[in-house]
């Protein structure tokens, strides 16, 4: 390892220690804000993990998030917490595999349409199940989890999502995805099982999103389908990842932080027009920053590296 690497590792470690100690110093408002920031950082990074290399736009974040939250509402009282999280992760992965196998062999368009409706579909199925089988629609969340616990779990999850992303980029799967991104036909003829690679990545991404939903569930004391399956989350995550640039591991996090703050501010100050403003922000990003902050950063640093600009 070079000295810069060692310095980077020390800096990240120190940053994590400071973050982990945050609940001791921050008051309730800042802790809650920090939780929101971490939540969206993990969600957007997990989204970018799949949608970055494959360029499939997934609008299914809400579906996985909601399933995670609902699993806690159903099982939180009955089972030990780690077991609940494990089940949530397993169900999230299973759902992703089913959705992935049935749609990822088709074109990207079909995938978008399916994920667009997935949250609504799962919500309807949950309502149907609750009305017909358990005969209750809303549920109280009784688990012994404090705000501090939520913060620490999310911090752990954030570290995990970056570590996994870093490992994937250096693995055979990561190399396979780069080839798929370049030319899918060539990828197949190199012996890459394209569907398997995509489905695996989608499942990994979905596990993280489901876990965020599960971890966040104790924040509400009462859950019903319309709360757990709030479609705005899917949309917010896409905007964040786009702003930062989904083709880089660190990109979505860069987008998540300012936009979380903006959305918090908007929903507090202008609740009536927040949807409109979100839309305008979204359009601005699509038109002005098509490759996100990460893309802008690459262009700037490339220009610096090649001092006399080369004619393309």
């Amino acid at each position, binding site marked *: 390892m070079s000295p810069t690497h060692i310095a980077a590792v020390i800096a990240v470690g120190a940053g994590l220690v400071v973050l982990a100690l945050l609940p001791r110093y921050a008051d309730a408002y800042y802790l809650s804000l920090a939780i929101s920031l971490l939540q969206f950082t993990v969600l957007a990074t997990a989204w970018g993990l799949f949608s970055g290399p494959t*360029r499939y*736009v997934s609008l299914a974040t809400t579906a996985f998030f909601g399933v995670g939250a609902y699993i806690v509402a159903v099982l939180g009282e009955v089972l030990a917490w780690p077991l609940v999280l494990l089940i949530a992760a397993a169900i999230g992965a299973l759902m992703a595999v089913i959705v992935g196998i*049935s*749609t990822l062999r*088709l*074109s*990207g*368009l*079909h995938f*978008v*349409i*399916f994920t*667009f*409706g997935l949250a*609504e*579909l799962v919500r*309807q*199925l949950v*309502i*149907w199940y609750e*009305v*017909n089988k358990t005969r209750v629609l809303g549920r109280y969340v009784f688990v012994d989890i404090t705000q501090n616990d939520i913060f620490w779990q999310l911090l752990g999850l954030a570290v995990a999502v970056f570590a996994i992303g870093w490992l994937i980029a250096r693995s055979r799967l990561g190399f396979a995805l780069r080839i798929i991104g370049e030319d899918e036909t060539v990828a197949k003829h190199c012996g890459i099982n394209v569907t398997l690679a995509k489905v695996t990545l989608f499942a990994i991404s979905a596990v993280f999103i489901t876990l965020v939903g599960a971890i966040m569930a104790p924040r509400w004391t009462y859950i019903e389908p319309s709360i757990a399956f709030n*479609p705005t989350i899917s*949309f917010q995550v*896409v905007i964040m990842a*786009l702003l930062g640039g989904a083709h880089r591991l660190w990109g979505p996090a860069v987008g998540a932080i300012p936009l979380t703050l903006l959305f918090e501010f908007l929903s507090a100050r202008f609740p*009536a*027009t*927040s*949807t*409109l*403003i*979100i*839309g*305008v922000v*979204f*359009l601005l990003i*699509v*038109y002005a920053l*098509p490759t996100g902050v990460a893309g802008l950063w690459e262009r700037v640093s490339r220009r610096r590296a090649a001092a006399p600009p080369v004619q393309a």
Partner: protein
Amino acid sequence: MTNAIFTGLMLGGMYALIAMGLTLQYGVARIMNLSYGEFLVAASFASYWLFTGWALNPLLGLAIVVPIGFGVSIVLYRFLLTPLVRRAATRDALEVDSLLATFGMMFIVQGIMLTMFGGAYFSYSFLSIPVTLFGETLALNRLVAFGLAVLFGLALYVALTRTRFGTAIRAVAVDPQAARLVAIDVTSMSAFAFALGGAMVAAAGVLVSMFLTFSASSGVIFTMKALMVVVMGGVGNLLGCLVAGLALGLSESLVATFVDPGLTLAVNFALFLGVLLVKPAGLFGRAQR
């Protein structure tokens, strides 16, 4: 049973009507419009406003709302979507870009409607006179809407298949590159097709508002149904729209009657995936070599 089939056909007709505009926008102009349902609901609100505020019959309202839909779409295509068309290196890139841009547009239109009308549900009573047909009773407004939907569909079909202009539009849908070679102005044809789709969705919005309750946030579900119908039927194919719309409506109504009304969406999705697994290009889509 007859009741379920009848309801299913009416519903399917409505789906086909809703999807016709989208199949033009996506099939010809290659714009995957995620804000489609929002424009439909906006037309519903316009019709509501004309009817309650100005006592204007929705059928006359069509004469105002449809041209506005056409005009707004032209402006949108010219100023918001043309830059994306120019920027896009490939068809796939345009698809992703237009998807994201219209996704933002969806929030904007929805946000405007939320600030103007709030989140409540709206409906108005027009021609809600019971009529008996084939032993089934239904409201006259539904029947009128269905009849007009059939009329619009036929008019569009004739215009696309029997006129030079329509042939040019279909040529752009099949192969924009080749269309350019036979001196078709692809850019303005795309703009026109997008706007024609906008006019169709405005018409659909007015007709639907005569018999459905709607709110500022009901657009998403219309977009979803329209997308399913378009992709299932084969992109850019009007006949496919009709068949897929009817299939969707019938399956939905049969399941609601005989199985469980809570499972309609699940059936929609199952049908959608089932069709695509057998025919990836849709029922009437051209298979790719």
